[in-house]
């Protein structure tokens, strides 16, 4: 079963990108079988969302980059594990490595990510360039899953 798993914290500036994409995706029908999840800040707890999942699209924000709002399409191999993976929360890099270590075959993973402008703790709201990237990200994901335009 294919899943779209959106990560992020809408209280922390552009880290809320995944949640914004989730909201848009959940407002319109998806093709049969596709399910969309708001994983929030889950680390290892999100392992459950990849169970019995042959194909997954992960949505997340990247640390501030040269071109805020630029969408990047990555694979699991592009995302390195965090240098310090340990902690109850973990991170998406840790999670991706954990998926590879599960007994069952890992899902095919695509990552849709945006370069952030500003990730600040407890400052809700996306920056203008990242907010503008939400609709293109949704369109990109819908094209991946054969959903057409919303």
């Amino acid at each position, binding site marked *: 079963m294919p899943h779209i798993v959106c990560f992020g914290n809408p209280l922390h500036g552009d880290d809320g990108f995944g949640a914004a994409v989730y909201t848009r995706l959940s407002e319109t029908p998806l093709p049969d079988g596709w399910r969309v999840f708001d994983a929030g800040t889950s680390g290892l707890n999100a392992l459950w969302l990849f169970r019995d999942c042959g194909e997954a699209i992960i949505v997340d924000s*990247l640390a501030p*980059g040269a071109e805020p709002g630029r969408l990047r399409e990555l694979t699991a191999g592009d995302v390195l594990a*965090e240098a310090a*993976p340990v*902690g*109850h929360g973990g991170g*998406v890099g840790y999670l991706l490595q954990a998926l590879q*270590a*599960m007994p069952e075959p890992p899902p095919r993973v695509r990552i849709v990510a945006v370069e952030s402008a500003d990730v600040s703790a407890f400052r809700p709201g996306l920056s203008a360039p990242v907010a503008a990237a939400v609709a293109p990200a949704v369109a990109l994901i819908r094209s991946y899953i054969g959903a057409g335009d919303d």
Partner: protein
Amino acid sequence: MARVELNVNLNRVEGDLELALSLEDGVVVEARTVGTLYRGFEQILVGRSPRDALVLTPRVCGICGTAHLYTAVLALEHAWRVPVPANATRIRNVCLIAEGIQNDLRQTFLFFAPDFRNARYRDRPWFAAAEAEFAPFSGRVHRETLAITRRVVEVVAHFGGQWPHSSYMVPGGVTSPADARRLLACRTIFAEVREWYERIVIGAPLDEWLALDSAAGYFEWLERPAHAASALGLVSRCARDLGLQRMAAGTPHMISFGAWCDPANWDAPHSARLMPGGFYDGDTGCIAELDQALINEHVRHSWFRPYSGGRHPWQGETIPDYQPGSDRYTWAKAPRYADKVVQTGPLAELLIGGDALIADLYATEGGNAWLRQFARVRRIAYELVQAERHLHELAEHLGEPHIVNPAKNAEIDGEGYGLIMAARGALGHWLRIRDGVIEKYQIVTPTAWNASPRDSAGLPGHWEQSLVGLSVADPDDPVEIGHVIRSHDPCLVCTVHMLETGKRWRFLP
């Protein structure tokens, strides 16, 4: 957020805990636990419907949401004097056990044990074994722990629909009964966990392991090939070779609220536990009956509006008052029991609860980093036994109610508290209801006990005490700090800062 090739960081925005340490000649002479994140649930709950606590408080933590839910519902039931059917308590206990096993296995084999792969230990005789078993994602035990801990929390999903952050416990019971399908599913899961625990973690049948009742017996057992080759046996050999059994005693006083509400005797005053709680007085070695009225919280060194001395949670307040540049240094309060600094966790739970092996190990070597971690793994055996017992009892009483909804006029104004042994130790919620809404809500978490700052008398908290005297061989790689802090199962991602001669080292666990 994660790190990608372009030096982008994919870590989540967090970093809730720091330790500020002072060293002299490589020895920690002073430690301060700095909680860098204000929690705020106490304010969020004020003015809300009492039942909102069942939805909000499980969000305090993504690891122990079931424990917070359980504690919140007990506090409401205590305030409203609501009876609870035995089957509801059985289901609650089963779910709490699943969450606890998840935590204890991850804490031990994903977070604590990988430190034994530190490059400094390369010449130790057990290093290759530690690499083979505990290396992240490639070590056998590491990989299998990932799989088994994902599996065990399915138990909570069967009754609560999801894990974490579920809200299926309500005053008077739980929302879903135990039917044959759920019982079969949960039995299967716990059977898988037990088989894995016996084969991989302890290398012995559960009964044989639980029958061990002396330090000498365990040390003899540790030499047996099956246990020596097991995951816990390897942890013990590594830890003891490094001297963790002589490290980081901290305060000798301990507190446990008692494990697992007794389904058959869960009525006022709501204190019957299957494993007894209490206060272990480290000065006398005596265990006293727990009196929650003796719990208080100090804010003398915390960023809250000042008040003098300590206050019981029903009289306490949580009004943030950030005071940078002062001698206040944390968003954590300082909980005390009868104004004594105490520690809590599996070691306290089993020592106070009467486990003979833990009691003898404590009598032989005192509190230490290895024993804290050892107790965490041993507790799983009790949890598995209790889970099987509860599931058996549920099957025997399948037709009995899982909830008795309280009458609307039962939801009265008043005060209540809930006390639970969560994975990390004693968790308490206290609330006061006035005019039908929450007037006051106070949460004292296990980590608040352990990671508390100094109190009104200047007494450092348990972690702060346990770190003083610790030798750090290489401040650029202070793995000793990692052993000590992780033996306490810190609740949040922990970043240790060591301050010495103006240079700042950052240690990421």
